[in-house]
């Protein structure tokens, strides 16, 4: 039977752990709020850009430029590039596992028989796919801490450039969508060839520049914003997942402490009882 001092030691160690998980929960809660604000702040731009792209695409429809734009060109899908957005650090529950598994399943099942490439955002994505022997064409770390548009745009430009040069035939974005604090949803969206929004033109425009020219400048920007939005969503989802995981860890620690304290008291009582019996039986032996 473990002695009193062993119990005390274990309780102290669990308490320390609990303190850390509690602190991490608080930190994640604060970061989550900031990440959520960033998601909301980025929304007007991406929504408007989408609308604008739909309008311009409708106006440019049928022209050669629209049909021939390199980012719209549809090819036979032989080489698939997946941009996997994951976290850099663990302790966020099933967050990174969900993303990696989902991405792997998407490639090996839905895109079976093609050549796969991975553009990894976050260490967790890089490590997972490198271990499994996937081709990793690019890696970006520490992006989700405080996503900057310029950094994300660089990924977008690189990917769009490779697509235009026919190095890949399609690009998908795999990330965790921030649904609520309690739940994230795995989302897979096609980035390239750009799926043109289906909305019809809302007005008959005067074009200062020809619609084809506008389309050519809008498309790369659109690709960048789609990725940027995904990175922001993923950052918010990561903090939410970590917060939930740390909350669960804290309450588990509380359970363990309670159970240990109960055992400890039992052991203490047992030893007191034993001592009393010893004293009493010793006294009765003298009579």
């Amino acid at each position: 039977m473990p002695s009193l001092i062993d119990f005390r030691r274990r309780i102290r160690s669990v308490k320390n752990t609990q303190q850390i998980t509690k602190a991490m929960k608080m930190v994640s809660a604060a970061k989550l709020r900031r990440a959520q604000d960033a998601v909301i702040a980025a929304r007007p731009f991406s929504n408007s850009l989408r609308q604008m792209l739909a309008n311009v695409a409708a106006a440019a429809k049928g022209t050669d430029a629209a049909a021939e734009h390199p980012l719209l060109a549809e090819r036979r899908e032989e080489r698939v590039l997946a941009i996997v957005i994951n976290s850099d650090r663990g302790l966020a529950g099933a967050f990174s596992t969900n993303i990696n598994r989902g991405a792997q399943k998407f490639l090996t099942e839905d895109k079976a028989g093609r050549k796969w490439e991975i553009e990894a955002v976050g260490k967790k994505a890089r490590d997972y796919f490198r271990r499994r022997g996937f081709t990793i064409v690019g890696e970006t770390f520490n992006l989700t801490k405080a996503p900057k548009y310029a950094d994300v745009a660089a990924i977008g430009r690189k990917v769009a450039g490779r697509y235009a040069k026919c190095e890949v035939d399609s690009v998908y974005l795999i990330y965790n969508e921030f649904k609520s604090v309690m739940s994230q949803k795995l989302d897979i969206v096609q980035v390239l060839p750009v799926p043109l929004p289906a909305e019809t033109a809302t007005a008959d425009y005067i074009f200062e520049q020809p619609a084809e020219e506008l389309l050519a400048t809008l498309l790369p920007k659109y690709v960048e914003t789609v990725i940027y939005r995904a990175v922001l969503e993923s950052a918010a989802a990561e903090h939410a997942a970590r917060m939930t995981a740390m909350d669960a860890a804290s309450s588990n620690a509380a359970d363990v402490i309670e159970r240990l304290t109960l055992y400890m008291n039992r052991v203490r009582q047992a030893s007191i009882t034993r001592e009393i019996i010893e004293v009493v039986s010793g006294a009765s032996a003298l009579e």
Partner: protein
Amino acid sequence: MAATFELEVATPDRLLVKDQVAEAQIPGLNGYVGILPDHAALLSELGSGLLTYTVGGNSRSVVVSGGWVEVLPTHTRVLAASAERPDEIDLKRAQESLDRAERRLKEAGDWDIARALRAAERARARLEAASKTGR
């Protein structure tokens, strides 16, 4: 005719302006465009410069550069690559980048001329905006 229309100025990471305005002057790629309510639908690329608008009789401005502007009768959307309020402009940085760009334009070198021109234009717009608002 409505007396105002909605003006929205957004950059990839934030929404700068969302107001009912009486008129707006927007720097298009081919020169300034003045917008009043019920303007005909228009789409243009955005140049660099000072975007001014009138809200309830007060004139306000933001510096924008790069992007697009979409005008519809009841609202106008400006999607800028970068946009700042005049009080957010980093004067020192703008001056430095103007100097750098001008130096590059003067000395023949290995630079991207078009990019230097754009940088100079951007920096000038920022400095001009700052001086106009009395800083």
